[in-house]
């Protein structure tokens, strides 16, 4: 059972800055980490490998710093790691991201399963999984909370629903996205960490992937971010004046007005 895990590197400490000119996230900072849901995806892939054999490949589209996240994946037990990295990919929307990832996965060779996180904690669209499946021409199941069984050519899973869960079967190869309830990701071992420092990470650029650069990046992406704004804070402050008794009176009046009392 060969599994590809899609990992995105996201900022670890959240002090989100939005570029007022372009309306995009100002990235950077050193506290990067693997998107938490993608840690669940990796853990599930490791468990599938431990049970059914095969290999786990981690793939990421991002800047060269994302190598560190891929190294972490290797420390946790991934057999290989590929970074899809090119200045032309900068500012790609979810469609472009999925397009690039789909070419990367094709180049790796069709796996039995692709596992994504349910969504990222920065972009938060949850679109990459389903888009990727579409582009790879594979079936897709979202929000998987348990893999019940893997048999010849198909997989039986539970997916989270508003109330309770669905039990679904999907033919393989296929793409799934997982929720955090699916497992508790393991911690790395010291030996794994030390080995991962020496591991080589494959890097493929636009040319090696055969990406048409006119279709990706901030220029080529079909999606356009129109506006990002902070929600208005609507807390109004008012200082009551007067004697204690009158302040209490006023307060009761205001609470009645607001239909709290």
């Amino acid at each position: 059972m060969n599994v590809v895990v899609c990992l995105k590197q996201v900022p670890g400490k959240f002090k989100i800055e939005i570029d007022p000119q372009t309306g995009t996230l100002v990235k950077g900072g050193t506290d990067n980490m693997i998107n938490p849901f993608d840690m669940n995806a990796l853990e599930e892939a490791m468990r599938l490998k431990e049970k059914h054999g095969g290999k786990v490949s981690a793939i990421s589209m991002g800047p060269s710093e994302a190598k560190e996240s891929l190294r972490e994946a290797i420390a946790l037990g991934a057999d290989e790691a590929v970074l899809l990295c090119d200045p032309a990919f900068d500012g790609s929307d979810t469609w472009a991201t999925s397009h690039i990832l789909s070419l990367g996965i094709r180049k790796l060779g069709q796996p039995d399963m692709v596992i994504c996180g349910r969504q990222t904690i920065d972009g938060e669209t949850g679109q990459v999984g389903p888009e990727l499946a579409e582009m790879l021409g594979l079936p897709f199941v979202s929000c998987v909370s348990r893999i019940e069984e893997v048999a010849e050519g198909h997989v039986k899973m539970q997916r989270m629903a508003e109330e309770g869960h669905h039990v679904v079967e999907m033919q393989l190869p296929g793409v799934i996205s997982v929720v955090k309830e699916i497992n508790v990701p393991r911690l790395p071992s010291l030996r794994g960490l030390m080995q991962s420092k020496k591991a080589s990470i494959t890097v493929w650029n636009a040319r090696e992937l055969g990406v048409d650069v006119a279709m990706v990046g901030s220029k080529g992406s079909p999606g356009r971010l129109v506006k990002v704004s902070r929600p208005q804070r609507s807390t109004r402050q008012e200082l009551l004046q007067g004697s204690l008794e009158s302040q209490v009176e006023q307060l009761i009046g205001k609470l009645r007005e607001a239909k709290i009392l």
Partner: protein
Amino acid sequence: MEYFLNEQQQTLRSLARKIAEQRILPVRAELDEKEEFPWELIREMASSDLLRIFIPEEYEGLGGGCLDLCLVMEELSRVCGGVAISYGANALGALPLINYGSEEQKRKYLPDIASGKRLAAFAVTEATAGSDAANIRTTAVRANRHYVLNGTKQFITNGGEAEIYSVVVMTDPARGSRGASALIVEKGTPGFSFGKKEKKMGIRASSTRELVFHDCRVPAENLIGREGQGFIIAIRTLDRSRPGVGAQAVGIAQGALEASVEYARQRIQFGHPISAIQAVQHMLADMATQVEAARALVYAAARTIDAGAKSFSEEAAMAKVFATDTAMRVTTDAVQILGGAGYMRDYPVEKMMRDAKITQIYEGTNQVVRNTIALELLKRKAMRE
């Protein structure tokens, strides 16, 4: 400060911190409350290789030294001193085997300790033999190819949970401390049982129990070193392990310092955070300085051991005394800075203060450890004259 840790040590430290913050932190209050042995955490540490680090490479370990062990102890203790000592006592139990065990003994036990399959413990203390460790009464009488043990050890960390016990017993009571020997006793040996589990002030996640030997037959090949070496093995083992207790103390103190800084910045009195009050600032400054000094001394002692120094009793003793007295002071001040909240179980510092206290008592009380320092000091002076 820059301690020039190598790449593996830096990685080890951040891994231990990760385990402490992600796995220990969420359960530490519950473990303390319920006095529950942290098996799940021990297994997690084992799968992260933390139990391998102090075992030589030939026996499936990672060949780390005293400093590596100290780094882990410090990081675990920063979050929970109780979980940390369960880890530390395992290393303590393995030390006599690593340093004095025969090739067969090492091959038999060390790989299991490295993988975490079996935990170890170290047992000297008895009702009559605390600081006066030579006054042990547990006897081991040689009978053909066995020793027959009778007696009771008390206050043994990891008692009941560990499978491999390095036990110091009297093989020749007439010879006093020269009649002591160290033996390996495995859990499950007929005649070996566990007495009461102590209810403790601090480090409550750890297990402290009596070991009871009643006509317990142990194969003669379980003798560590030679007959009569037991006391010296015990003393030397403690010399090696004391920086680890120092590191435990540094970790506890570091945790208390961080909690104090965080609280001082948030707590508003007289219209401003209490961190704006100079009296509080000076307490924080003293705490931080003492913790750093303790850390530097502990690392230096650990490095002295790792460098292969022939004698290091004094260095190890100094690191233990200074760091553990520091932990007691710093955690007491932390409770002070948190005021009434500090006294409450909702905040972590009262536990840290309870946990800190034991570090001044075990592996030699700080009075006894000072005796060691003074003895070395005076011996050196006398030798020069």
